[in-house]
């Protein structure tokens, strides 16, 4: 039994350079030396002053973008359905509704997180709420994955604040008893450094976020940009249309990935997960937008004609990885001419980030679908000043 435990704690020891306390640790590694505990500590100890200016800047961009897509998202069918469900299940009482009440209850509860133990338990409780299969991506249920992630995480934190306990080793890899590693086949955990030693750097400092320019799976942006460049070649630089009659064949060179490879998507959700659809839309229109996924746009005969001429290729050098993939389109015209477009890094990717102007333009389009222009501008200002904001209610009150 002791030898089994030694094997279990070895990876942590090797990483941390700690002495081996195998004999005393009949129960496993000492509680404070686990990966899980390091996460709990970090969460409870990290302070605003630990946020560098780069991290602040990047995260404010993320906040703005999320609010915008959330606002336009409130016009979708799936949102309406989820709202119906919640309204039906919970009374719209100002004092007691889930939304209003969360706002007033949360602060004192979170203030109770005086030590990292409760934070660790929140993570462990949340692990029991994780995991949804990929088969529901490209369906109407996919958005619920994010909605559920949000509320389950909140729930885990609230339960932990009431003293509910869960596994103190949930992030550590314990042989024979899966924790968070249940969700991954090759799992190698690392502890989080303490923010106090100055040894900690936020990942966001080194690895920026990608922002989408249109509402579809990220992979679509490569083929859309590649196809848009071919569209420009066909129509010149003014507005114009591409005539499918001129197109004999379209070849797309993309990474192999089943759930975004759909020749004839049936629904808006499938269309957002279709290399073919996004390439052809961009080829036809010069760009992919929110409107590209409307029922009318999806049923256009010109689009369907282009779709029927697409052939897929999966080159060996094109991995299914957002850091390394590319998208290539090759259009053979009826006359015999061949036009090519290739995109290695779409505009909005972390290697080629959206400018602040582009990000705000996207936000105005999204938020403006739902809010008055004055509110839209105020939101942009408030988020820009977020780190100096005394009271978040200033932000919250602009959201409706």
């Amino acid at each position: 039994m002791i030898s089994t435990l030694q094997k279990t704690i070895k990876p942590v020891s090797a990483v941390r350079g700690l002495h081996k306390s195998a004999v005393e640790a009949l129960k496993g590694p000492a509680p404070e030396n686990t990966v899980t505990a390091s996460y709990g500590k970090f969460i409870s100890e990290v302070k605003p002053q630990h946020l560098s200016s780069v991290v602040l800047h990047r995260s404010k961009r993320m906040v703005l973008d999320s609010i915008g897509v959330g606002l336009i998202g409130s016009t979708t069918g799936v949102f309406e359905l989820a709202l119906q469900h919640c309204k039906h299940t919970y009374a719209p009482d100002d004092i007691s509704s889930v939304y209003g009440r969360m706002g007033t209850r949360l602060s004192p509860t979170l203030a109770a997180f005086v030590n990292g133990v409760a934070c660790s338990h929140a993570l462990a409780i949340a692990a029991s709420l994780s995991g949804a299969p990929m088969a529901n991506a490209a369906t109407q249920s996919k958005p619920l994955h994010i909605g559920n992630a949000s509320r389950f995480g909140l729930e885990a934190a609230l339960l932990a604040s009431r003293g509910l306990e869960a596994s103190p080793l949930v992030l550590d890899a314990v042989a024979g008893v899966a924790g968070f590693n249940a969700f991954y086949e090759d799992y190698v955990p690392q502890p989080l450094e303490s923010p106090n030693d100055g040894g900690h750097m936020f990942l966001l400092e080194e690895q920026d976020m990608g922002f989408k320019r249109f509402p579809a799976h990220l992979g679509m942006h490569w083929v859309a940009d590649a196809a848009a460049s071919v569209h420009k070649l066909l129509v010149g630089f003014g507005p114009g249309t591409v005539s499918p009659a001129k197109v004999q064949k379209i070849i797309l060179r993309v990474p192999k990935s089943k759930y975004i490879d759909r020749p004839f998507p049936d629904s808006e959700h499938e269309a957002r997960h279709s290399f073919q659809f996004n390439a052809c839309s961009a080829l036809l229109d010069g760009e992919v937008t929110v409107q590209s996924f409307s029922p009318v746009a999806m049923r256009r005969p010109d689009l369907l004609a282009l779709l029927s001429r697409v052939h897929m290729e999966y080159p060996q050098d094109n991995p299914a990885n957002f850091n390394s993939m590319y998208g290539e389109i090759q259009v053979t015209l009826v006359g015999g001419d061949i036009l090519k477009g290739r995109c290695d890094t779409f505009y909005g990717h972390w290697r080629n980030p959206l400018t602040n102007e582009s990000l705000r333009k996207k936000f105005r389009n999204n938020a403006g679908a739902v809010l008055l222009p004055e509110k839209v501008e105020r939101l942009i200002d408030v988020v820009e000043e977020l780190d100096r904001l005394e009271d978040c209610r200033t932000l919250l009150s602009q959201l409706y």
Partner: protein
Amino acid sequence: MLRKGITGSFGAAIHGLGPLRLTDAVINRSKRMMLDALGVGLIGTRTDVFSKALAYSQMFRSDERSSVWGRSETTLPPHYAAFVNGVAVHSMDFDDTWHPATHPSGAVLPALLALAETLPGRVSGLDLLLAFNVGVEVQGRLMRFSSEAYNIPERFHPPSVVGVMGSAAASAKLLGLPPAQCAHALAIAASSCGAPLANAATQTKPLHIGNAARRGLEAAQLARLGLEGNPAILDMDCGFGVYYKDYSPSAMAAAADYKWILEEQDVAFKRIPAHLGMHWAVDAALEARAKLENATGVTFDLSQIRRVTLRVPPSKYVDCPFPGTEHQARHSFQFNACAALLDNEVTAASFGAARMNRPALRELLARVEVETPEDNAPSFDKMYCEVEVETQRGQSHVARCNTFYGHWRKPLTQEDLVDKFSSNASSVLCAEGVEGVVEVVGNMEAVRDCAVLSSYLRLTSAPEEQRVTSRTIQRAL
């Protein structure tokens, strides 16, 4: 690999199975399961984890309200009633166990009772029985899609995988959804599956059943509003198959002439609020102690013992030499064997703090060795437990348990099952409530309106203000 039609066959079966399909055997077995689940749920409302789940759930308001078992005044929004009652059922690890392993009833019954209280029409006992069996059956079918499900789990806690699906199926049945929506309920539910085993043996484990109940109910309600998931969710490896390393699904038979799994494979009911594996250890330890006493002619005494060897199947999460918490104790071969040796019985009281920290028990635990023989498979269908007690004088007394009393191969008598229920329920309900539940469940197929069951579940013996914690109960015992 995409196989066609399996998900559709489940949707069709959930919709199509009618009360006439329930055989006598299935009705009898499922009534026993309902009674046991209610009993362990009622006593479970005295636990610390239940009070946390309840306090959390009371943050929410709604127009529709459903009962909290064992509370005369408290109601909750239906999802949260399903949640807390489910937590209660699994709070002491006292609920039923099936083969392949899961705890089928706790995921399904709380959701159904909560839902039934909100439906406009009358829900008969037969309606409830049918929906319950649909929920249990779906769980059984899903577990037969992999060989991984047949062994003691290592990755996901089974109720968090199949329990959600069972609750969705049962709720869809009670709601009378059409076949396509029944299938979508399963798909939506699949996005709520999967809790890692590391949280077993912690206070969070009971939430796996509570969450299974409420997420399945929610999935059915979202499907009813028209939400869609993947219509081939059960067919695809990247669908429900993600939860198993070897996944091989098959279609559900048409409703006509249906063969229920419960007919062939009964559940086990626990005599002790602990992981199922502990029951083998306890029965073997009790027999070893009897043998020792027969041989020596004196009552068992700690000082006689040099060593205790346990021969058990390999399973890391129930191998705990020095449990620190009550939850760990419920998942410790060593603890349960020693408690049985010392006290000649293991009961709910054995897991109280005072009993757990007795010097005598700690001393005996230090003398335990665990072996995992090759022929001892980590499967509730095949495992055994051997307890060998070696005295200071060098004598050995061995006892082996292949099938504990309560296992599906050696079921509890009806009398013993009702006794277990009555003992559990009377910790919370008055005599009238206890007897009322026994009678209603006993005649469930003839009950015209199962609202009567909910009212018995609210006939408490003490005013609600008396918040009794599990510590108080242990002292009282």
